[in-house]
């Protein structure tokens, strides 16, 4: 037992000393790291606001369940009240003289009043103005699917649509780089929540003209948009995952497709 404890404390010490070391120097251990630039990239997602429309099968099955439920149930108080109303009305037809002036509120009257109350409430529409205008700059559209933020960046000679990205600076953790570049590129009025310190994906490519560095290694970080607008003047669009394939480089798309979930 004592031996075990000693072992444990030794391990703890080594972990602590390692953590301190990590804070002090961000050394790159690999031999060929100098040849690659390290980038962090942010996959900023506007999560779906609305549930999907039901598929025909889902509608059919939900109707079936509703039907089954009704079948297995007994009459409720409201239905009994309706039957009682019918009976009273029938009786009144038979003898007109008896308590003809007393008007009681029937179950159907109640239903009507409920119905008008319901009609008075207008829920917000599932499609917005930006849906009609196809305003790609707005994230207040396509509410029933996930939107991703793409920005146009200059890669080599060409400008391409990619997830916002930026170079890692010595002394930062990659998560800090990701936060920094998102703030730099979009302005600081976006309220986002990063999903963890670990990168969710990795993409490597080589530059056509190899000078000091031969290529770039990009680490992707996921973040959820809470609210806010992009204030910086940059070229960007909010786009559904299903629509990004033609915009991105094919190999790049494959990586993004793997870590961005459809649902």
């Amino acid at each position, binding site marked *: 037992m004592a031996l075990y404890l000693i072992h444990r404390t030794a391990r703890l010490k080594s972990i602590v000393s390692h953590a301190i070391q990590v804070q002090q120097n961000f050394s790159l251990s690999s031999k060929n790291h100098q040849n690659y630039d390290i980038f962090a990239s942010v996959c900023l997602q506007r999560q779906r606001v609305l549930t999907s429309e039901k598929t025909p099968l889902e509608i059919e099955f939900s109707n079936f369940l509703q039907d089954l439920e009704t079948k297995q149930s007994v*009459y409720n108080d409201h239905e009994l009240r309706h039957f009682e109303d019918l009976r009273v009305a029938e009786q009144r037809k038979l003898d007109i003289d008896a308590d003809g002036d007393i008007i009681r509120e029937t179950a159907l009257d109640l239903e009507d009043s409920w119905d008008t109350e319901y009609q008075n409430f207008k829920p*917000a529409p*599932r499609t917005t103005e930006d849906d009609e205008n196809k305003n790609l700059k707005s994230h207040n559209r396509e509410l029933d699917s996930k939107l991703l933020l793409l920005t146009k960046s200059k890669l080599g000679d060409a400008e391409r649509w990619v997830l916002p990205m930026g170079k890692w600076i010595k002394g930062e953790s990659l998560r800090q780089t990701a936060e920094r570049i998102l703030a730099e590129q979009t302005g600081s009025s976006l309220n986002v929540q990063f999903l963890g*310190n670990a990168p969710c994906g990795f993409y490597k490519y080589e530059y056509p003209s190899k000078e000091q560095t031969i290529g770039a290694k990009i680490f992707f970080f996921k973040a959820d948009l809470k609210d806010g607008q992009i204030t910086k003047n940059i070229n960007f669009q909010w786009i559904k995952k299903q629509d990004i394939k033609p915009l991105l480089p094919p190999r790049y798309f494959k990586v993004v497709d793997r870590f961005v979930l459809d649902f």
Partner: protein
Amino acid sequence: MMALRKFWQRSVHIIQNTAIYTPAANFHTSEALCSAPMKKKRKLDINIVIQKEIKKKRKLEKQIRRLEAKGRILKPIDEIVGDRSIMKTIESRKRPTDNENSKNEEEVKALQRRWANYKFDQHVKETKQISDAIDCQNEALIELRKISEDLYQLAIQTDNDLVPFKRIGPVSTPPISNYNPPDGEYIDTTRKYDK
């Protein structure tokens, strides 16, 4: 012997001096009270004592009888007990079984089969995507470790802002901005039970 007498005289002298010159506002302690006044013993009538004993005994007996008769009284669970008024009128509440719109047995079976397949496919797609995403992340971490152990160590730290994780939605219609919900009445229908 002389010396002792002298010393005694001197000490008496000192004590007398202090007694004379002590100012009135000086601190002094009161004498310690090492005993307490006696309590008056109440004389009890022997009859009253006997009656009290009998009362106690009766009370206990009553409690025992009640426990034996009913056992422990438990709080009823509404979901299990159900509404008694409905149980009384259950005969008049029977719904007629025939319904033209409802499906026949074969149609139901076919629908259930289609539904099961549909949900299974959905499940397979979702689990595959999740495991893909996990693989993708692990590959990224392995690659990061190759580049720098320190960056890797920072990346695998827990993000305490995410615990507990909370996300609202999705909902069936979007929230109305600046919506003023009408006031309702709050009626507490929770029943109270004695122990």
